[in-house]
């Protein structure tokens, strides 16, 4: 069986897909990729279904050894990607051979990178999802962060198909996301905004906030102006969504991320829109954000556009063999398949 040997797990690497839904009424958080745009793009680049599970690498520092030849792609926060020490491009279909070492440096900007392997990971789902929820110790790889020495199996058929010419896909530079230390998140005012002083609601939608070092996959804690409640911070515990901005008694907002609890007891001031959740997932301590108020209608429109944009960003290199590059052909002779590589000289 093809497998990936984890030589260095980096800061925090987990298996994630698009999340675990259907169990929130039992208190099970959705988990899943912090940046689903990057996860879906990486999957499309290797020909997987968009929702296939990937490795989510937070801040980087990862080293993996390939147990077989395989096809993979890396998207998300820019980390120095190398194969056997040689720089390799992100946002592009890549091939690696048996024994090759794929490494990611530390993220220069942003937080999470996603490694998709063609064929996907051969891991059993827990409660219908491959996402890791490490707090409760289930999902993904043994319910925990990857460790050095782990051997992650890939599905049967993950070894490299040889028609590589048809396999090279990429996202052009101008269509890749930019990760900046200063961003704007679009947000919809909550029906509980009336539980805050009007000046505080105004302040929320106009002042900058800094991402606190106490942020994690559960929540992005903000520092900056203290928001004042008009009727107390506590509400009867009630359902929340990823992107919900809740404000505890200390007045500092917390934007809920994928490992959030399913219900919360603090008044909600706003909700970050679905289309901007990937940006939320990529925020790192010290980044500055502002909130721009938008409407439900505009947000739903933005989500539709995003759907089309993800698929539309993928290009294929089939008809343009790179100068001085190589092309692979799948040749069958007497019923035996051969990988024929042609190198331009």
């Amino acid at each position, binding site marked *: 069986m093809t497998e990936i040997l984890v030589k260095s797990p980096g800061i925090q690497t987990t298996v994630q897909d698009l999340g675990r839904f259907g169990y929130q009424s*039992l*208190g099970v958080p959705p988990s899943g990729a912090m940046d689903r745009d990057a996860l879906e793009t990486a999957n499309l680049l290797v020909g997987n279904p968009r929702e296939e599970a990937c490795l989510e690498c937070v801040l980087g520092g990862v080293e993996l050894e390939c147990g077989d030849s395989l096809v993979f792609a890396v998207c998300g926060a820019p980390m120095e990607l190398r194969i056997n020490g040689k720089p390799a491009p992100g946002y592009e279909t890549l091939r690696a051979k048996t024994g090759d070492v794929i490494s990611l440096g530390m993220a220069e900007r942003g937080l999470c990178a996603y490694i998709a392997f063609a064929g996907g990971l051969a891991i059993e789902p827990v409660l219908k999802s491959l996402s890791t929820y490490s707090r*409760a110790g289930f999902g993904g790889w043994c319910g925990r962060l990857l460790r050095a020495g782990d051997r992650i199996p890939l599905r049967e058929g993950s070894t490299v198909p040889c028609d590589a010419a048809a396999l090279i896909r990429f996202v052009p530079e101008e269509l890749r996301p930019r990760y900046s230390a200063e961003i704007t998140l679009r947000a919809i005012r909550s029906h509980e905004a009336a539980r805050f002083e009007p000046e505080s609601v105004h302040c929320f939608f106009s002042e900058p906030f800094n991402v606190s070092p106490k942020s994690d996959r559960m929540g992005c804690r903000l520092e900056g102006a203290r928001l004042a409640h008009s009727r107390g911070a506590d509400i*009867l515990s009630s359902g929340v969504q990823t992107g919900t901005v809740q404000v505890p008694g200390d007045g500092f907002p917390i934007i809920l991320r994928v490992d959030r*609890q399913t219900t919360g007891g603090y008044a909600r001031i706003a909700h970050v829109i679905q289309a901007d959740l990937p940006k939320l997932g990529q925020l790192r301590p010290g980044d500055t954000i502002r909130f721009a108020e938008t409407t*439900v209608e505009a947000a739903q429109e933005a989500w539709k556009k995003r759907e089309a944009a993800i698929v539309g960003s993928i290009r294929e290199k089939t008809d343009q063999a790179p100068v001085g590059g190589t092309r692979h052909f799948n040749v069958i002779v007497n019923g035996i398949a051969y990988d024929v590589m042609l190198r331009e000289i």
Partner: protein
Amino acid sequence: MAMDPDYAVYPFGDAALIVETADEISESAYRRIRGLAEAVAKSPPAALIELIPSYRSLLVTYDSLLADYASMEGAILSLISRVGAFEEPAHETIRIPVCYESPHCLDLDEVARHAGLKPEEVVTLHSANAYLVYMLGFTPGFPYLGGMSERIATPRRLSPRTKIPAGSVGIADRQTGIYPMESPGGWNIIGRTPLSLFDHTREPPALLKAGQYIQFYPIHSDEFDRIASDVGRGAWSPEIETTPRGEV
């Protein structure tokens, strides 16, 4: 926002809406939310993803590529207009063994001191009546219970413990609850159940569900150990008493 004498509907971001009823912890608010949740589950709109009921609200999440807010709100309002009184299923009471003895009763003396009672009186009050499971949330399988005697209400500990064992039974103000997994927490721990409240390898994974009642009963520590080992082998399940509807 749309109004009904009993329910109000609001957008909750761009992929959910929330239905709210009276802002209180009460069995009547609970029944309205449960009634609506049952009605939505029975005839789910095509775009529905999940229902997350709580004390006084129902969060309805949906796929906004399949339905926009207006059509989702319309579907929910139409269900609201047709929802009858919640037909409560037969009333289930799950009997939960709790060891209120050392080493499991970390804060029992403190709760007793605060209430001006003897520790054994706290245990009697805590295990006297059944508690309604209003909702599950906070962590997988954590039950929000209603109905604890106010005489044993105790404020949260000033400094939360970093590690509370799974199964610990605690009191925080007027609430009582059970920690499904080892976690930090500031509740006053008065005992521990050997039962496993959440096990992702089980179907359903949660021991309890909203709408059930639980009845604690005291056990000694040797019994705790015996049940814990049986639970570990999958050879123990709690007694469930079923009372037909209307006889509660």
